């Protein structure tokens, strides 16, 4: 065998290659490329001026502020939770582990609308704590706390499910060595584990943040749509669109698009720097 020309069994015939590549390019251009272009084309259809005006307008700025505020609470919360959960799950072995992982994943398989609904049932007027909350003059549903809760729910698994497989793959030999040499649990985590999982954590936080800023269904149910007060950027887009202010809607949508593109760029950079991180279906 060794003397013959090498067999290249993985090589597809030229026509198949051309067929697959052109199918892929056509599909992605129509399905993903065109919608992306549409956002910027409509947003800028009257020029840059009106688009900037729509973004600088009072309610739009309030929506941007609220979106950043929500993400600033939900993302760190889920990051801390994700680190805790992955430490318990990946570095220890106990019965029912895979069941626990499934439970953490649960929010991914629940419709966003149901995610919003559950908090209405707990904190809303007719909900479990509704009467008590009214007596104490605390507003959760149709107010900012409800939006935070709904966002935490839908972004709950992102960091944990990024870190668990990574920490499992790395094993616990290094941590065991550190502990046996007298390091405390916290020191072991900070000096040994944290540097190893840094990139996975960044990756998880990136995805978590994109979803937190872009969530629509769950937030829409609990927000109450009070302009300038409880509307996040995606909800503001909806309001403008329903008022036939297409330039305004697509201008704010363009801002969200830029955020999504930045997320993808950073995510690609992490994948290039650390090939062991990411690269799986959410």
């Amino acid at each position, binding site marked *: 065998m060794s003397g013959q020309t090498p067999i290249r*069994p993985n090589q597809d015939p030229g026509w198949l290659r051309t067929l697959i590549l052109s199918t892929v390019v056509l599909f992605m251009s129509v399905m*993903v490329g065109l*919608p992306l272009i*549409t956002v910027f084309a409509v947003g800028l259809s009257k020029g840059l001026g009106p688009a900037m005006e729509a973004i600088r307008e009072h309610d739009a700025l309030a929506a941007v502020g609220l979106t950043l505020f929500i993400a600033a609470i939900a993302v760190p919360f889920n990051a801390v939770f994700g680190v805790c959960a992955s430490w318990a799950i990946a570095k220890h*072995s106990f019965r029912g582990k895979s069941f626990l992982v499934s439970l953490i994943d649960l929010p991914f*398989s629940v419709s966003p*609308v149901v995610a919003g*609904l559950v908090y209405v049932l707990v904190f809303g007027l007719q909900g479990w704590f509704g009467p008590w909350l009214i007596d104490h003059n605390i507003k959760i549903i149709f107010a900012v706390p409800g939006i935070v809760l709904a966002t935490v729910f839908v972004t709950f698994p992102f960091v944990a499910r990024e870190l668990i497989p990574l920490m499992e793959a790395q094993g616990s030999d290094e941590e065991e060595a550190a502990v046996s040499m*007298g390091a405390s649990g916290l020191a072991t985590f900070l000096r040994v584990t944290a540097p190893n999982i840094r990139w996975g954590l960044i990756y998880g936080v990136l995805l978590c943040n994109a979803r937190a800023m872009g969530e629509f269904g769950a937030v829409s149910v609990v927000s109450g749509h009070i302009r300038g007060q409880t509307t996040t950027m995606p909800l503001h887009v909806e309001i403008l669109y329903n008022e036939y202010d297409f330039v305004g809607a697509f201008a704010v949508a363009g801002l969200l698009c830029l955020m999504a593109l930045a997320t993808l760029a950073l995510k690609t950079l992490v994948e290039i720097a650390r090939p062991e991180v990411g690269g799986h*279906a959410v």
Partner: protein
Amino acid sequence: MAGFASTRPLGRVKRGEGWLRRSAIPGFGLTFGVTATVLSLVVLIPLSAVAARALTLSPDAFLKVAFSVRAVDAYWLSIWTSLIAASLNGVFGLAIAWALVRYRFPGKMALNAVVDLPFALPTAVAGIALATLYANTGLVGALLEKVGIKAAYNPVGIVIALTFVGVPFVVRTVEPILKDLAADVEEASASLGASRLQTLVRVVAPGLAPAWLTGFAMAFARGIGEYGSVIFIAGNMPYRSEIAPLLITIQLEQFDYGAASAIALVMLLISFAMLLVINATQAWMKRSRVR
């Protein structure tokens, strides 16, 4: 904590008596406690509220609202549009994964990044962009209307939106398996005299099947619950283009929490069933990968 290590043996620790295997690594109590508490407070207890509220209805009332003609039409619409969208993604996702793993071409890295755009782009943005594009005044919608297809404000539009949000699933589940499958098995098959077609059908396809099915099931499950990208393009006509999640929000706007919970409970049960299917295909995937 400093003397911690000396009190416990390292190396192969024997399986403990209870559910927890003893380990030299500290912090299990704290981290497990935090995990269980937060999970219960944020996810499990609120989710149980849906079942609790739905079950306050009498059985007759529950069946009446959960399986009204309008609700059944909505479930059915969500199911069949998600099935078509997942199938489209099954075909095109496989082609994309194949191209990303097997071919070198200019723009490959951009394609790889753009595959995840539906994950990163807010669904409402996708919704208004697709609605504009596929309306009869839009770029693609006008073309489709010439050949007699009404895309937006029609179930066709729902399929388009669900196809968009489902793009990454099949690609990202098939891609790693295809990478692993790589050269050796196919070379073995070819060196034993199999034609290229035989190798693809008998060797590559069975290897990819579990991952492909997992991606398909994930795209399908996502489609059933999807809301933001669909409502702008769907037209939302009762009995015709009204998806199940929208029906929940309509009941909520009328402050009919009971009906909203009943429909949500049916949707949760569909989600859990899908979760079981996905877990089963993933277990199959792991088994076939080990072999």
